[in-house]
């Protein structure tokens, strides 16, 4: 870990501003230093207990540079992404706030951007969002007031021009690192690189891609992106993830919007004895292949319901090249506290009434 990537006074506080950086966060620093970044996705709890968020985040510690807080992905209801980010920043994690246009109109979104930034969120990922039909509440009203492009532009103008969409002045701008999503695996294929260009023009500084299982197709896409010089204007992170089994792969392919899984991948999983292990191995192989593609600045590991494997996958793929991302430092006195706790457990319980009784009977 690079020691400059933590605030020595308070792990939860933003870092010192650096020239050329738009945020005061760790992820931007790692990317701008030219290191291969790793991000992952937190499975949002269906609960109001903050400890569930902390538990789920702690398994990523020391392995990832950023944690995506998903905004009701797949249109399923969970704890809100702003709240998850607010909890995570308290502990010093570097969350990436996802904002989807499906559930909120422009008034709510701009308010969230300001609020999140005030809570210490340094990275925002602008998404259009899946349609409500994909989730557990298909009768909901889809909002889609902005789209990812106009959302990016709105956030950028809030940061750079210090103005709301209406032109009203903001006294202190949200200094955030802006991201977007790309899907090179959906038609119209020849328009996809141009769409990335459009996103960069709208304000995207980094992008995370949809699950990549078709490496040749991704390579083709990246070739065009590099030809257009887009990789110099924006950091491109490829999305990867382990498949639990051939059955889940099939299910994902037909039910999760925008996921493309070629047949040979499913065949390979089906042929394997232990499908889960094979899925992990496949993910590691894809990561190693992606790492070598020109223009790729990092990977985004989405291991839905298999988060405990992220550390192993990142380790085995060797994408970090020995670097260790940020990890919570134990406090100086926490060892003493832990020791005392142990003692307290072992010690005999002192019950005043009993002690008094004993003393009385002894005399």
């Amino acid at each position, binding site marked *: 870990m690079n020691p400059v990537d933590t605030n020595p006074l308070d792990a939860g506080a933003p870092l010192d501003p650096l020239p050329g950086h738009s945020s005061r966060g760790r992820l931007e620093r790692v990317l701008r230093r030219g290191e291969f970044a790793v991000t992952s996705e937190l499975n949002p709890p269906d609960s109001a207990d903050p400890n569930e968020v902390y538990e789920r985040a702690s398994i990523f510690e020391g392995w990832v540079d950023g944690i995506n807080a998903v905004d009701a992905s797949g249109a399923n209801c969970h704890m809100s992404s702003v709240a998850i980010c607010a909890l995570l920043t308290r502990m010093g994690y570097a969350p990436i706030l996802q904002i989807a246009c499906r559930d909120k109109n422009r008034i709510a979104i701009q308010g969230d951007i300001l609020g999140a930034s005030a809570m210490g969120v340094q990275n925002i990922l602008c998404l259009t969002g899946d349609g409500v*039909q994909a989730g557990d509440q298909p009768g909901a009203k*889809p909002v*889609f007031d902005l*789209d990812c492009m*106009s959302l990016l532009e709105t956030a950028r103008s809030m940061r750079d021009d210090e103005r709301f969409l209406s032109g009203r002045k903001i006294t202190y701008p949200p200094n955030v690192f802006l991201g977007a999503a790309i899907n090179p695996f*959906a*038609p119209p294929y020849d328009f996809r690189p141009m769409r990335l260009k*459009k996103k960069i023009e709208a304000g995207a500084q980094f992008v995370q891609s949809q699950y990549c299982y078709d490496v040749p197709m991704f390579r083709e896409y990246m070739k065009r992106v590099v030809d257009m010089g887009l990789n110099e204007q924006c950091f491109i992170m490829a999305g990867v993830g382990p498949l639990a089994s051939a059955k889940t792969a099939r299910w994902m392919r037909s039910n999760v919007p925008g996921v493309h899984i070629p047949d040979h991948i499913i065949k390979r999983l089906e042929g394997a004895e232990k499908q889960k292990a094979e899925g992990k191995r496949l993910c590691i192989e894809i990561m190693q292949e992606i790492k070598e593609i020109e223009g790729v600045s990092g990977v985004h590991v989405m291991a839905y319901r298999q988060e405990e494997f992220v550390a192993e996958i990142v380790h085995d793929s060797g994408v970090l090249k020995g670097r260790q991302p940020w990890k919570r430092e134990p406090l100086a006195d926490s060892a003493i506290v832990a020791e005392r706790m142990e003692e307290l457990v072992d010690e005999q319980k002192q019950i005043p009434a009993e002690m008094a009784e004993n003393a009385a009977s002894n005399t």
Partner: protein
Amino acid sequence: MARLETWTSKLRRTNAKSDFQPANVSPHRRKQRSFTIRLWVVRHARFFEWFYEKFANLFLFLHPFWKAVGYHRAEKPVTFVERQVKGLLFDCRMCGQCALSSTGMSCPMNCPKQLRNGPCGGVRANGNCEVEPDMPCVWVQAWSGASKMQTGTDKIMAVQKPVDQSLRETSSWLRVTAEAAQEKESVKS
């Protein structure tokens, strides 16, 4: 491949059973006719681009007339005609801020997510929409239309502003004309 779960089938599964089951469910107003005309227009996007240019010029030429009548008085009949014509050709939703020339003559308001800067990442491999699996994705169509047009591929790269919802159901023909006339005058003076 496994059977696709559509919006309709999902709602049917989750909603209580009753004798009446609507055929095609969509949270947006959806015209219940096939997309034939809309798709035909996109295939002839080059012609419509040419025609629209001429048409806009004609409207601008009539500017003194609109002014004499009063734009506010012309609005009602023009909006009526516009709704009928564009409704037939493009399945227009009367957003009041037409972007057809930047979207390959494929009306973006027909996208279930109402994207003005599409396509989203959910487009199906066969080029159909994520939300409504039986409809060709509006933005795949837009790209194919734009590649047929003269200025389409440049214009589709412009980032469109969010829709101004307060302009719904107003005439975008008159607005564009009035704006163009104003610009012409300001250049002259």
